[in-house]
């Protein structure tokens, strides 16, 4: 086994949050090493330049880790969820869609609001400056001034084009008297930070141009320029602790040589996502005195619709998201449930093959002589909508270790269980009914819904969001980290990925995860001496 010289900070995982933490800490002059089990994903590796990109994104570029069987991946056994994950530099930003909304203040105060979720140890006001900082680093687009959200600074670039699909949706929401707003995106609408503005291609599963913030193109160059040492193909097997209970570093295997090595560190940061992080902590048998590691897995409540309108809206063109509807984002118990949801309105699929073979609702064109007429009626006329809500935590929805299945290095695989609860099911019923309202208001000639339940009634959500499994809190018996993302049990261990989210909000979580990672990294930077010396630098 190779023993590497100790570094100041070891970061496990080179995805979105690992890259942000590395940038902050390396810029402060700290010696930062990042271990990443996957590889770089070069621009030319993406399917976007190939005529068969539609097929590739359903197979070897599928965002579901279990559908593509990439050698960098590890198995995730699930009895319900489809698991979005990419293991490599930039993490899941290699395949995500980069819709970029923020949490709202009440998301941090659900304990006060109804008590079925915990309060966060921090408030919206604590995180707000880091939302702005993250936006500037990452490069986002959008329109300030939404009355349904707290005031914010202008996005680094203006809103993306207001497509015909957006216009048709806006008319529909106006007719219903509901809120709508142009979608915020982790996509730049004009040249920014050395990257080109979005060209409207519509293939919004990662973006090798870098117009959508693929963190290997937007953040990693900054982290590397600041001196971060990134080791790819380095799969961490275990986080080690000393007799003092502090993390001493990580044992990892170099997947190129098969050799194991130990990287010592004064501070260890885990940034391995809401599945990978609990898996690693459980395999390492650390940070889990609360028995909360892996529990309270949140995916969001999610149901979706597609509708087709007579007006040609060329919905295969432009960024995939169009408008966001926040009419139902706050709790209103008269609906029969707590918490809220929002509409993530899309355009259409950019792939003609998906119009025919099925997209959001898996609606298929007929075969035979009716096929072409159906296609002519539907192509360029479709709009997809996701309704995404705040699911209640359930300790039995969780990530555990599979008792038999292992990865290529013999490490137990992650096992997922998730089922929506009573409140979640009521919310999804309400959401489906509102999706019908939108289709009617739009004058759609056809609409379809999906509840993502299979033929046996099992909710198989496309779990783009895997959060909550090492949640942040004020009580060491019910949470895994404190308000600075610091382990209650291991004082020099920090978790900066989506597993720390105490509630899911009604939005795509990457903006909040990114802001929290920046905030935690800033805290580590400002308190590094105390943290490295063995003290618990507990400003919180």
């Amino acid at each position, binding site marked *: 086994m190779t023993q590497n010289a100790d570094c100041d900070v070891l970061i496990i995982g080179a995805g979105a949050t690992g890259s942000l933490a590395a940038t902050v800490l390396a810029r402060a002059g700290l010696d930062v090493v990042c271990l990443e089990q996957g590889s770089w994903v070069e621009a030319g590796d993406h399917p*976007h*330049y190939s*005529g*068969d*990109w*539609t*097929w590739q994104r*359903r197979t*070897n570029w599928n965002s579901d880790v279990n559908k593509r*069987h990439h050698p960098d991946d590890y198995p995730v056994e699930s009895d319900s969820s489809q698991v979005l994950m990419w293991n490599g530099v930039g993490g899941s930003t290699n395949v995500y869609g980069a819709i970029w909304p923020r949490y*709202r*203040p*009440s998301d*941090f105060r659900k304990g*006060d*609001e*109804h008590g079925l979720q915990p309060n966060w140890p921090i*408030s919206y*006001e604590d995180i707000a400056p880091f939302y702005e900082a993250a936006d500037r680093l990452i490069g986002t687009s959008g329109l300030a001034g939404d*009355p*349904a959200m707290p005031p914010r600074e202008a996005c680094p670039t203006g809103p993306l*084009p*207001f*497509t015909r699909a957006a216009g048709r949706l806006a008319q529909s929401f106006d007719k219903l*008297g509901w*809120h709508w*707003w142009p979608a915020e995106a982790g996509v730049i*609408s004009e040249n920014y930070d050395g990257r080109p503005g*979005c*060209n*409207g*291609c*519509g293939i919004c599963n990662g973006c*090798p141009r870098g117009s959508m913030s693929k963190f290997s193109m937007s953040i990693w160059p900054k982290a590397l320029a600041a001196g971060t040492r990134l080791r790819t193909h380095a799969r961490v097997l275990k986080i080690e602790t000393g007799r003092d209970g502090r993390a001493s570093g990580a044992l990892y295997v170099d997947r190129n040589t098969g050799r194991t090595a130990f990287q010592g560190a004064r501070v260890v940061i885990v940034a391995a996502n809401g599945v990978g992080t609990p898996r690693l902590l459980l395999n390492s048998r650390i940070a889990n005195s609360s028995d909360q590691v892996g529990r309270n897995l949140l995916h969001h409540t999610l149901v979706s619709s597609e509708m087709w309108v007579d007006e040609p809206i*060329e919905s295969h063109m*432009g960024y995939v998201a169009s408008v966001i509807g926040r009419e139902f984002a*706050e709790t209103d*118990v008269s609906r029969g*449930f*707590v918490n809220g949801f929002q509409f993530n309105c899309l355009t259409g699929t950019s*792939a*003609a*093959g*998906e119009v*025919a*073979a*099925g997209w959001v609702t898996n609606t*298929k064109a007929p*075969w*035979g*002589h009716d096929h072409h007429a159906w296609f002519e009626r539907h*192509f360029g006329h479709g709009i997809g909508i996701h309704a995404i809500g705040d699911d209640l935590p359930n300790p039995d929805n969780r990530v555990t270790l599979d008792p038999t299945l292992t990865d290529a290095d013999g490490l137990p695989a992650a096992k997922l269980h998730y089922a929506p609860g*009573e*409140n979640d*099911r009521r919310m*999804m*019923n309400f959401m*489906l009914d509102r999706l019908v309202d939108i289709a009617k208001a739009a004058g759609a000639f056809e609409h379809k819904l999906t*509840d993502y*339940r299979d033929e046996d009634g099992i909710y198989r959500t496309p779990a783009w969001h895997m959060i909550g499994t090492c949640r942040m809190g004020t009580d060491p018996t019910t949470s895994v980290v404190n308000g600075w993302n610091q382990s209650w049990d291991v004082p020099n261990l920090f978790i900066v990925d989506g597993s720390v989210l105490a509630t899911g909000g009604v939005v795509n979580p990457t903006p909040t995860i990114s802001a929290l990672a920046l905030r935690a990294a800033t805290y580590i930077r400002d308190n590094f001496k105390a943290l490295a010396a063995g003290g618990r630098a507990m400003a919180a």
Partner: protein
Amino acid sequence: MEIEMRSEPMPKGGAGPAAAADGLADLVEVLLPGEGVWPSGKSVGVQAFLALRLLQERGRAELARVTAAVIAAGGPLASLDAAARIAVVRRFEAEEPALFGLVRDIAYVSYYENPFVAEAINAQGHPYDLRPHIKGYPVPRFDLARDTPRHGRGRYVPTDAVRRVDVSALDLTSDATQSWGLKR
């Protein structure tokens, strides 16, 4: 996608390779017939992609399964008239829905990846590029004067305004909502 690392022998008992290839092409012809500007699936070679992708997704035995399913449904198609071909494919769809669905979806995706089919889409008046990422689409920029919402709707609850709601009547500890989603 499982990519096979070695060549497997064709399972015994199926049609010969020439007949199997013709049979797959005939099936594609029924699924995606030509009409007007639309070339047929067979004429743009969808069957070659179908065979390759079935192999990649499910292994070589799946090709024989397709052939066998068509025969079991009344095929092969070659000797049948148009109406009889459609009837056979309908039976295939009814009797082997999962396999048929896979074949149909691969055929559709493969068809619309073809340059001649993309030309047909453009002939309908839609700008459609098989590789749009290279040059993008001409989407007009956001016009602040025209596109900014003026409705004034929307609200949020500030941190210090969050108040307790009464959930006592909701009975959320129950498991009452068993009928949910699309099956209500």
